[in-house]
C-alpha cells in the first residue's frame, strides 16, 4: 500500500469535466425508466401495499390487532418509530455537520443522504401518529386554542417529540430544497420539454447563478447547517427522553441521549451505504460516489458502532454500580432472560461484525460491506426492540410479567414502512438529481481559481 498522504485525493475521480458531471447526474432524469426500474418499483410498492392493508385494518378494527398489550404497551410501533428517526440522522450529519467541518467529500453523497433523511422521517412520523389509535384526532397534539380550554402538557417528553420531529422534518425539507434550487435552474436550462421547463422554473425560483445571489445563498446554507447540527443532536436526544424520563428500570438512564445519537448515526450511515452501493452502480456514478466515499462512511460506522458497544457495556456497569436490584435484574434478564435471542442478535450485529471494518480490504470490498451494513441495520432495529420490549415485559411486579409476540399486522406495518421508504427513494432517483450538481462542480479539479486567484499573475 503506497499511499501518498501529503496530497489530498481528488473528490471527483476520473478527471470529469464540469459538463460531464452534469451530464452524468442529469441523465436519469432525461431518459425513460427501464424494466429494472419498474421491477424495483413494483417490489417496493407491493411492500407498501402490504403496509397499507395492515394499516387500513388496524384503523377499522382498532389496535387490538397488534400484539402489544399489558404490560408491553409499546412494541413494534415505537420500535419502528425510533428506528426510522435514527436512519434519518445520517443525512443531516452528512449535509450539515460535515459541511461545517469543511469535508469536501460530503458533496457527492449529501443530496442523497438528505433525501433519505426526509423519507425516513416520513416513515418515522407515521408510527406515533397511528400508535395513538385514532390518528384523525392527532390534532390534539398541537397547542391550539380549543373549546376544552385545555393546553397540551409542555412538560411531557411525548409532546417534546411532536415538536422535535416536526421541526426536524421541516428544517430538513427546507435545507434540502435550498440545496436543490441551483440544480433546478441547471435542469431548467438544459431541458427541451415545455412541461418540465415550467416545473423546473417554478421550483428554481428564478435562479440565475448570480454571484450577488450566491453570496447570500452560501450564507444561508451555512446558517441552516449551523441550526441543523444541534437540531439533529436534539431530535434523538428527545426521542431518548421518551424512555429516559420515565422511571422504568432499563429506561431510566442518563446515558440514553448520547447513546441514542451515536446509534442513530450508526444505523443511518449503514442505510446510506446500503442504498448508495446500488445507486452508484445503477446510475454509473462510480466517479462521483467513489470507493473513498464508501471507505470513509465505513470508518464512521466502525467508530459509532464502538460507541454503541461502549454504551451497552456501560449500561451493565451502571446497573451493577447503582446497587438497585430492579435495575440489575432488568439487565441480567435482558442478556439471559426470555428475550436473550434478541439481545445477542443486537450485540453481534452492532458490535462484533463491524469490527471487520478495521481492515482496509473489507472497508473497500462491496460484498463484505453490503453484508455488514445490512447486519447493522438488523442489529439497530433489534437494539430498539430490546430497549423497548425487554424493559417493559418484566418490571417491578412479577405478577404482571408478560411476553410479547408480534402479530401479522405488526409485521405488515414494518414491511409497509420499508416499502414506503424504498418507493420514495426509487421515485426520487428518477425525478430529482441524486447528486448535487452545483456542489460537485465546485469541488471538481480546476473548478476554483488557482491559488492566487489568477489576478496577481495577470
Amino acid at each position, binding site marked *: 500500500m503506497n499511499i501518498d498522504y501529503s496530497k489530498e485525493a481528488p473528490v471527483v475521480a476520473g478527471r470529469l469535466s464540469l459538463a460531464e458531471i452534469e451530464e452524468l447526474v442529469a441523465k436519469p432524469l432525461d431518459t425513460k425508466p427501464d424494466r429494472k426500474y419498474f421491477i424495483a418499483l413494483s417490489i417496493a410498492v407491493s411492500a407498501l401495499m402490504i403496509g397499507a392493508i395492515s394499516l387500513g385494518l388496524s384503523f377499522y378494527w*382498532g389496535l387490538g390487532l397488534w400484539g402489544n398489550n399489558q404490560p408491553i404497551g409499546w412494541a413494534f410501533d415505537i420500535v419502528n418509530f425510533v428506528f426510522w428517526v435514527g436512519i434519518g440522522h445520517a443525512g443531516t450529519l452528512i449535509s450539515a455537520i460535515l459541511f461545517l467541518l469543511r469535508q469536501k467529500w460530503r458533496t457527492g453523497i449529501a443530496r442523497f443522504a438528505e433525501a433519505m433523511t426526509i423519507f425516513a422521517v416520513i416513515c418515522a412520523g407515521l408510527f406515533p401518529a397511528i400508535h395513538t389509535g385514532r390518528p384523525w384526532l392527532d390534532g390534539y397534539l398541537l397547542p391550539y386554542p380549543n373549546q376544552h380550554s385545555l393546553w397540551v402538557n409542555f412538560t411531557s417528553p411525548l409532546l417534546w417529540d411532536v415538536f422535535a420531529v416536526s*421541526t426536524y422534518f*421541516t428544517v430538513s425539507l427546507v435545507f434540502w430544497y435550498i440545496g436543490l434550487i441551483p440544480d433546478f435552474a441547471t435542469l431548467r436550462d438544459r431541458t427541451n420539454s415545455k412541461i418540465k421547463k415550467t416545473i423546473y422554473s417554478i421550483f428554481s*425560483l*428564478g435562479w440565475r447563478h448570480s454571484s450577488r445571489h450566491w453570496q447570500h445563498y452560501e450564507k444561508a446554507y451555512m446558517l441552516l447547517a449551523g441550526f441543523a447540527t444541534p437540531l439533529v443532536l436534539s431530535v434523538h436526544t428527545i426521542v431518548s427522553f421518551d424512555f429516559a424520563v420515565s422511571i422504568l428500570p432499563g429506561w431510566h438512564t442518563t446515558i440514553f441521549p448520547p447513546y441514542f445519537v451515536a446509534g442513530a448515526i450508526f444505523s443511518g450511515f449503514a442505510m446510506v451505504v446500503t442504498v448508495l452501493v446500488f445507486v452508484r452502480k445503477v446510475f454509473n456514478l462510480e466517479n462521483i460516489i467513489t470507493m473513498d466515499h464508501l471507505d470513509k462512511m465505513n470508518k464512521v460506522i466502525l467508530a459509532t458502532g464502538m460507541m454503541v458497544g461502549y454504551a451497552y457495556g456501560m449500561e451493565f456497569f451502571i446497573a451493577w454500580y447503582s446497587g438497585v436490584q430492579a435495575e440489575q435484574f432488568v439487565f441480567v434478564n435482558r442478556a439471559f432472560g426470555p428475550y436473550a435471542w434478541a439481545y445477542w442478535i443486537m450485540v453481534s450485529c452492532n458490535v462484533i461484525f463491524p469490527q471487520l471494518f478495521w481492515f482496509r480490504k473489507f472497508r473497500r470490498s462491496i460484498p463484505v460491506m453490503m453484508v455488514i451494513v445490512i447486519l447493522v441495520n438488523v442489529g439497530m432495529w433489534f437494539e430498539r426492540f430490546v430497549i423497548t420490549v425487554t424493559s417493559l415485559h418484566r418490571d417491578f411486579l412479577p405478577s404482571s410479567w408478560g411476553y410479547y409476540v408480534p402479530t401479522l399486522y405488526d409485521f405488515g406495518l414494518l414491511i409497509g414502512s420499508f416499502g414506503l421508504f424504498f418507493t420514495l427513494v426509487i421515485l426520487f432517483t428518477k425525478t430529482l438529481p441524486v447528486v448535487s450538481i452545483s456542489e460537485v462542480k465546485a469541488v471538481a479539479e480546476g473548478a476554483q*481559481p488557482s491559488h492566487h*486567484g489568477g489576478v496577481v499573475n495577470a
Partner: protein
Amino acid sequence: MHNNKLYGIAAIFDNPDKIIAAAKKTVEAGYSKFDVNTPYPVHGMEKAMKLKPSKLGFITLVFGLTGSFLALFFMYWTMSLDYPMIIGGKPFFALPAFIPVTFEVTVLLATLATVIGMITFFFKFPENHHPLHDTNYMKQVSIDKFGLVIESVDKNFEIEKVKDFLNSLNPISIEEIYYKEKETYSVLEPRFLTFLFAIALVTSGSTYFILNKLLYMTPFNWMSEQLKLNPQKPSELFADGFGMRNPVKGTVARGFMPYLAKGQNNPTELLENPYLITEENIKLGKSKYLTFCSPCHGNYGDGDSRLRGQFPNPPSLHSQRARDFKDGMIYHVIVNGQNSMPSYAPYLNVEERWAVVNYIRVLQRAKNASDSDIQFVKKENLNNASN
C-alpha cells in the same frame, strides 16, 4: 428587434481565474451595475466584485430570539396562568422541562425566516421573467462557463465602450441581451386563473367533506357510537324495546345487609351494641352526631337547635325516657326514624350508627353526672396538671 430594449452586454469566459480577473477590472473601470453568473460559487468572487458581507444573519438572529421568547412566554402563560396544573410535582414554570420545546421553536422560526428572508429581501422575490432567462448566455453559465454582464442602467454605460472594454478582457464570446418592453404576466392568463379556481374548489370541498361527513362515518365515529346499553336510548335487545331496565328479580345491591328488626316496636333483644366504647369510636360518633343529629337535637342533645319553637319541638335526649332507652332502641330509631324524624340509614353505615349511639350515651352521662363522676374527673384533672 426595435421594440425590444437592451438589458445589457454579456461576456463569457471559460475558466475561474479569468472571471475573477474580469470582475476585478470591471470594478476598477467604474461599472457598478454588473453581475457575474457562475454555475457554482467561485471562491474569492465577493472580494473581486467588492460586495459587502451578507446581512442575512441579522434576520436569523432576530427571528431566532423571537422564537425563543415566544415559545417560553407561551408555555409560561398556558402552564402557569391560563390553566395552571401540577404535573409530576413540577412547578408551574418548569424551566428545564420547557427547554426542548423552546429550542425546537427557535430553530424552526430562525430557519424559515432565513430562507423566506433570503428569497424576499435579498433575491427580491423569484423573478422567472428576468431578461437573462432563456438566453444563450444563461444556458452556458448554467453548465460550465463563467459570465459577466454589464447592465444598460449603469451610469457609465455606452454600447461601444462597454463592448471594447469586455473585448479587452479576452472572453470567448460577447452577447447583447434584450428584453420586451411590455411585460406580460403569465399569472393572469385565464387558464391559470381557472386552474387556481379549480384548486380552491377541490380544497374547500374536500375540507368540508372530511370535517362534516367523513368524520361521522365508520370507523371515525367510533367512541361516539358504541355497542353498549344506553339507559336513555331504545334497545333492540329486549322485546319491549326499552334500554332502561329494572334489575333482575332477587338482585342484591352491593353491601346490602337485611335489617331484621324492621317494623318492630322494641327490638332490643335483637340488637346488641357490638362496639366497645373506645376513644376512636366516640370521636367517630361525635363527628357523625354533629353532622347529622345536631341540626335538630342540638350540639349537646338538649333539643335546643334552631328548630326549637317549631311544631313538633325536637325532643331532648336527656329526658328520662331517652335515658332509659336500651342501645338497641336508639339504633332502631336511627335506622327507622320516629315521628317526624326520617331514617338516617342511607347516611350512616352500621359502625357509624353504633358510634353515634355510644356518643349519645357519653352526652347523657355528662349532662347527668353523679358525684362520683365529678370526683373522678377532678382527680384526673389534678393528675394531668401534676404531670
